[in-house]
């Protein structure tokens, strides 16, 4: 007998579980299907564990480099018990995933563990450990997420060629690692591995790191720090293949037509992710999929089939957890009878490299492509911020881009300490349609990193206090300064 539900969510990542909870809150009989672990990639093998490892790496670095300056007398070599570190990281994931389980239970969402496959647009079969089950639902929310891409010559085996999942699970230090792909995942994992003492070489096929995803000025700060920390970066390098020679691996890359061999112990493949639209019987029931593999959806995240919605990575860019959650709530409310459509102005993005990069809104290049060139741009360095100096984290800046006439904020780009925690103010400003003055005239507490946002807005208006801005012209608010 098929079990009947109002709402069935396929996938329990940050899109799926959030959608399920909201649907249940709205009184819908809801179930969720998960084939691996509650919380999906994000909580188990993505955002959360990588942040745990990055935090540990950052902590180690600060002990090595900053603590002695502050007078701490620490042994020259700080030993790390990698297996204990893994245990701690795992405890973080377990705690978060357990939290999701509790929330689902508390909201009376039925959880089915197993692989879900659509047999018709109205029914799904779940094959789990205890056999298979058929679910019928009035509404389905597909939240199957995404998975890493592979490239020719490299197949992830999690032994020699690792994906992010394998890298995060390493319980020993790797002497030499080649990271293929200089995107945010490769740089995040490569950076913390470097912190733990690995020799890291990043091979990026395009001419820049974080190409097109972050403000070039921000990337420059990170590139400099990577270099300083000893990470080797090869730009314009195409990975061709690898072979095992005795105990070591040899990776062949092509740089400007010349072949080059890099020796290492592990290869980390982080060349991007692709939507999970090829499984779960999605194609069999006639769902439309675009050429990049995303399910075709409209602004309400409705697919071409009645009663089937798609959210998160499988429903389009940007593939970010918080976008998925936002969509999850929205879709659940649409099912609940509310009129909703996706109209967010910005999805803020964070890259947990050292220092962190975070952005909201548009980059200068994107504005230029739209024909918007009359801009006011303000930049304020963390080096001039009291809190940053007292934290010994002075690299980076906040850059605010606004319309020259209306002063309405188009984009904010941060590279520096706690960029991830500072960007929400910028996202709010953009959603609210704030002007530079709105940020500049909001009193920001002292001494905090947040003051940098206020000063960057002031800088865009031409009169930041804690940097010298020229020409000095007897400043009047709103007057045009160079």
């Amino acid at each position, binding site marked *: 007998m098929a079990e009947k539900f109002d709402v069935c969510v396929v996938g329990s990542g940050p899109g799926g579980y959030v959608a399920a909870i909201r649907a249940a809150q709205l009184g819908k009989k809801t179930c969720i299907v998960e084939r691996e672990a509650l919380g999906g990639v994000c909580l188990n093998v993505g955002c959360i564990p990588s942040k745990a490892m990055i935090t540990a790496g950052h902590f180690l670095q600060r002990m090595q480099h900053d603590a002695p300056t502050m007078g701490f007398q620490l042994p020259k070599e700080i030993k790390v018990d990698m297996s204990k570190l893994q245990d701690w990281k795992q405890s973080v994931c377990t705690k978060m995933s357990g939290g999701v389980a509790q929330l689902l239970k508390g909201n009376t969402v039925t959880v089915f563990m197993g692989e879900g496959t659509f047999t018709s647009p109205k029914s799904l079969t779940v094959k789990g450990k205890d056999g298979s089950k058929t679910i019928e639902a009035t509404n389905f929310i597909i939240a199957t997420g995404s998975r890493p891409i592979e490239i020719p010559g490299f197949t992830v085996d999690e032994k020699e060629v690792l994906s992010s999942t394998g890298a995060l699970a390493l319980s020993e230090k790797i002497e030499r690692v080649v990271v293929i792909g200089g995107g945010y995942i490769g740089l995040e994992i490569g950076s913390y591995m470097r912190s733990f003492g690995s020799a890291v070489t990043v091979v990026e096929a395009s001419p820049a790191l974080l190409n097109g995803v972050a403000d070039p000025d921000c990337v420059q700060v990170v590139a400099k720090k990577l270099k300083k920390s000893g990470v080797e970066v090869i730009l314009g390098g195409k990975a061709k293949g690898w072979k095992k020679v005795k105990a070591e691996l040899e990776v062949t890359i092509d740089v400007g037509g010349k072949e080059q061999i890099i020796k290492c112990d592990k290869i980390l493949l982080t060349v991007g992710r692709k939507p999970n639209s090829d499984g779960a019987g999605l194609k069999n029931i006639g769902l439309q999929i675009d050429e990049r593999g995303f399910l075709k959806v409209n602004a309400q995240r409705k*697919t071409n089939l009645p009663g089937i919605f798609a959210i998160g990575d499988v429903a389009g860019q940007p593939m970010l957890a918080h976008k998925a959650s936002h969509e999850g709530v929205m879709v659940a409310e649409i099912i609940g*009878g509310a009129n909703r459509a996706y109209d967010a102005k910005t999805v803020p993005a964070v890259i947990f490299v050292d220092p962190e990069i975070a952005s909201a809104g548009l980059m200068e290049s994107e504005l230029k492509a739209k024909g918007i060139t009359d801009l006011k741009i303000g930049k304020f360095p963390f080096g001039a911020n009291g809190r940053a100096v007292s934290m010994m984290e002075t690299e980076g800046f906040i850059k605010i881009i606004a319309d020259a006439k209306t002063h309405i904020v188009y984009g904010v780009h941060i590279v520096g300490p706690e960029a991830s925690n500072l960007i929400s103010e910028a996202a709010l400003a953009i959603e609210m349609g704030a002007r530079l003055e709105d940020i500049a005239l909001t009193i920001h507490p002292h001494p905090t990193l947040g003051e940098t946002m206020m000063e960057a807005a002031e800088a865009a208006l031409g009169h930041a206090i804690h940097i010298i801005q020229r020409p000095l012209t007897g400043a009047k608010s709103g007057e045009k300064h160079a």
Partner: protein
Amino acid sequence: MATQNVKLPDVGEGVTEGELVRWLVKIGDSVKADQPVVELMTDKATVEVPSPFAGLVKELKYKEGDVVPIESVLLVLDSDGAKSAAPATAAPTMSAAPTAAKAPAKAAPIMSANCGTGADFYPPVAGSNVLATPATRRLARETGVDINGLQGSGLAGRVTQEDVQKAKGGGGGVPAGQARLPMKDIPRPSVPNQGGSMEERVPLRGIRKKIAENMQMAKHIIPHFTLMEEARVDQLVLMRTQAKEHAEKYGVKVTYLPFIMKALIATCREFPMFNASMDDAAAEIVYKKFFNIGFAADTPNGLMVPVIKNADFKTVLQMSQEIGQLAGKAREGKLALDDMKGASITVTNIGSVAGLYATPIINHPEVAILGMYKIMDKPVWNGKEFVRGQFMNFTITCDHRLIDGAVAANFMKAFVARIENPSQLILDMI
């Protein structure tokens, strides 16, 4: 691709526009000839407008809440593939108010995943250049306002919550031919959302919206006052009881209402300022030379005010018959536009249910409303003993701009004299 425009036909009866209450079709739907496609509210009646052609809905030209002038294109049909039926007459069914009764139920949260990748939702998504806070964007969506079409009144063209509310409350509130009065100064405060399951929000639409607008306008512009009096109605009760028996032969039920109307008409002849209007736009007092008496009817759809036209030329029997018919139509939601138009003064008998007295709201642009309440027995001292007396309470609610308190008191005195003494009523009854 052959396309055909479906226009809002001239529904007659002086109607020049209507508010779009609800689309009955969506883009991509297949429509048969004569199939109702839209629910429209004109004056106080909700009508369903059918499409004269068959076809696939290609474009909806208006959104819910819009005011649509007659002869404008409502929607575009793609007639390819659909059986090309001969254009049927596009007369809208004027007696379709039952759909209005269904509307609130539809608006309540229901399981309706109306899918498809087309733009099957409304309003469209706010464009990237729209300057409005997320809360304002949501307000626009929930109230069915296309924020892309709004001229923001805020700094740098920011669309404010008020702009959205104004767009929602948009013009067309007062039927043509009546004095249009400025409504823009009326504040439209929001009620904080309690969130979650604490409340349910339903769009203010159709007849309820019309009632709300009319009441708000009337209370806003008319300085009301109400005078209350009781009348001894023993003789009237007797007369009505006898009349009722006679009328039964004709199959007509005679109530008190036609007698009250007759007394009202006679009294209004003495006091013409009660059968009048204030034309604010022209700064003129309009004395009416006809007696169209509205009577408030409680219906499942809300308050309706059907009108006995030229009541001064009708017999009590005729009036009774007409009242019965109109009340029946009102209950069934089948009142035609014309049934509710052109009242010169109104009577409300809500008091027949409960309430010693009420303070009714005047049906603008009228200037007075008479309230009648239930008949009660009271002891009366006749000098020797207490005897049974039957009493009925009356109120007259007046527009103080035109009618002073003393005038209202004299009006009431003259009216009550006719009620208490039917022989006097007969004398000047036409």
